């Protein structure tokens, strides 16, 4: 009887357990799917496709100049204030610096005084070199002197001829006649020399030839000096305006300001560096040998730059510009083992690019067609075998759940971020691109 009671109690417990068990299983039937879904790794997928792929390489571009020009001051100045900035376009005649009034006047006076001194010197030299006769007399005497010199030359030749005849054949003249003719000719020559001396004496002061040459040389120098100083004065007056501003004598873009406020500048120190249309600017960068294989002369270079535009209200607004340029030169640099790429810029055509404070450059390869292309990030090393795998998601035809499958693949070609793989993808398969958890074969997943 007691055993029967125990059995009854056990049965009751079993029945209670069975009821609880089935209730729990029933609850789980409704909630386990939800919980399971929540716990499934979230994946993003992609499909293999035929892709036209371009490789791109981005870098911050810096504008280099083949050479720059330096603007030197023509005179020594004390700069009160610099009026130009870097990357400012400068034209001839625009003020580049403010000068002190006292310095400007002093400089002008010095030049004028120097010119005056030179002029005095020239006048003195000329006076000492020539007599004070009128020009007509001098011309007449010079003509007379020329005639007399020709006569003298003629007589000297006649005398030489006569002497030769006497020496070779004395039978033409009698010794008396020969002697007489000789004496007459010598007297004529002497007379002509005397005349020439007198004319020359009347034309020039009596001085040695050396002194005269010296004075002529000095005169020439002084005249040259005068010319220089006059040009200097003219220049001085043309490059400083009435407001004591120093005016530019060059056209171009100032790329480096080298003088400063409240400082002296002299003719040996440049005021600023500038470029003009005669200067070659370029964007130059280095690339590895691997990249050299990808990017060639035909590759496109895109520049994203900033430029400033007048908004019509007296201020400027920043704008973004895009330019597409081609590569002009690629050469190997043995020092660093890299390849140096050069894109030439025209200082007029690409003025905005050159002036941009920030240039982002993107170089792109020619498009390459990849069949069956998938992102490289989807390819993993096979931990079990020495190979490559991808995770493929496929919908189960019965459960409609997404199941992950590990698929070994062979990479046929790799380019940039994509690889062409040797695998026949089914239409309902997609490749796991990203996952929230590590994946295993036959794992259920959900799409993000």
């Amino acid at each position, binding site marked *: 009887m007691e055993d029967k009671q125990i059995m009854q109690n056990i049965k009751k417990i079993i029945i209670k357990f*069975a009821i609880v068990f089935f209730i729990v299983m029933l609850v789980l039937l409704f909630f*386990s*799917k939800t*919980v399971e879904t929540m716990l499934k790794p979230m994946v993003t997928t992609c499909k293999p496709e035929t892709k036209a792929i371009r490789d791109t390489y981005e870098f911050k571009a810096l504008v280099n100049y083949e050479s720059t020009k330096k603007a030197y001051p023509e005179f020594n100045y004390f700069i009160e204030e610099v009026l130009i900035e870097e990357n400012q376009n400068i034209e001839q005649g625009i003020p580049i610096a403010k000068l002190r009034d006292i310095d400007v006047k002093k400089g002008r006076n010095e030049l004028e005084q120097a010119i005056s001194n030179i002029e005095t010197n020239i006048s003195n030299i000329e006076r000492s070199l020539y007599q004070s006769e009128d020009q007509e007399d001098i011309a007449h005497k010079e003509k007379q002197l020329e005639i007399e010199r020709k006569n003298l030359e003629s007589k000297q030749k006649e005398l030489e001829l006569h002497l030769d005849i006497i020496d070779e054949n004395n039978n033409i003249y009698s010794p008396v006649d020969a002697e007489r003719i000789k004496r007459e000719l010598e007297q004529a020559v002497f007379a002509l020399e005397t005349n020439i001396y007198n004319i020359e004496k009347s034309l020039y002061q009596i001085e040695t030839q050396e002194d005269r040459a010296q004075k002529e040389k000095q005169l020439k120098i002084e005249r040259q000096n005068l010319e220089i100083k006059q040009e200097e004065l003219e220049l001085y007056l043309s490059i400083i305006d009435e407001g004591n501003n120093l005016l530019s004598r060059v056209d171009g873009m100032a790329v480096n300001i080298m003088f400063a406020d409240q400082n002296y500048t002299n003719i040996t120190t440049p005021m600023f560096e500038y470029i003009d249309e005669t200067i070659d600017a370029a964007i130059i960068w280095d690339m590895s040998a691997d990249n050299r294989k990808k990017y060639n002369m035909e590759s496109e270079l895109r520049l994203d730059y900033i430029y400033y535009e007048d908004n019509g209200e007296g201020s400027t607004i920043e704008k973004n510009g895009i330019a597409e340029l081609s590569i002009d030169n690629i050469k190997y640099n043995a020092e660093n083992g890299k390849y140096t790429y050069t894109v030439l810029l025209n200082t007029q055509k690409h003025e905005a690019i050159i002036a941009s404070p920030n240039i982002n450059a993107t170089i792109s390869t020619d498009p390459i067609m990849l069949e069956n292309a998938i992102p490289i990030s989807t390819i993993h090393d096979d931990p079990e075998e020495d190979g490559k795998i991808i995770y493929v998601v496929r919908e189960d035809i019965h*459960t409609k759940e997404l199941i992950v499958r590990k698929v070994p693949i062979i990479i046929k070609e790799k380019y940039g971020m994509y690889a062409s793989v040797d695998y026949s993808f089914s239409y309902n398969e997609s490749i796991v691109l990203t996952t929230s958890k590590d994946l295993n074969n036959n794992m259920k997943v959900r799409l993000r």
Partner: protein
Amino acid sequence: MKKKLRVTTKYIIISLISLVVLMPFIVMITNSFMQTQEIIANYSTQSGEYQKLSLIPTQVTLNQYYNVFFRQSDYIRQFWNSVILTFPSVIIQIIISFMAAYALAKIKFPGRNIIFIIILIIMLLPIQVTLVPNFMVLNLLNLTNKQIGIILINIFSPLAICLLRQYLMYIPDETIEAAKIDGAGQLHIIFRIILPQAKGGIAAVAILSFIDSWNMVEQPLILLNDTMKQPLSVLMTSYNYSNIGVAFAAGVVFMIPALIIFLLGQEYIVEGIKLYRSK
């Protein structure tokens, strides 16, 4: 002393046999509380043999049960598929088997014994033999890949008919005759007189039928292509080395309904089988 030694020896032998029989269950239950890593370490094969058989977990965990209940909702869904396939099958099978058994045991009609022999022959056929004809019939009826097809196949059980027939044979014919004299009809006799007396046999048949249906693999595997409709017994066969830990926990949960049914009706099973054998 001699008798005591004999009894002791008998108990030792029985205990050893029980241990061998129960060992799979013990392994399954204890291993279901182990960490996955521990299970994999224990059962990784070396030259085709398991490294060791471990019964005591180094660290007890419910992780495998967590995986069964929350990480693999298939298990719960297919548990209920098993319930859906098993309970109607058992109930309808009991009704039909009881009717057939009553007819064979208590109604005298020509060819009764031939029919019984045919049923016996069918009972002797292995289930694999009838799979293809069953499939063809269900295909004709357009019932393949439908759970009702499996239920239809299961509702006819020669074993259940034989068991119940034997059970009903023990009910005296006089009881039926007396009821007839009192004016009772066939249905009244069946439900009011025979059924209460055949309760033990019906329970035994129900339990055996439940266990049979609960564990069926071949029929749903062949007749149900849709894995969403397959019972848990089929899913249990798909566990492999990589998720052996889950298989242990799933096995324990899978065993519970059958165990409950067995514990509730174990006395009827013993009684039913005893009666069948004694005849």
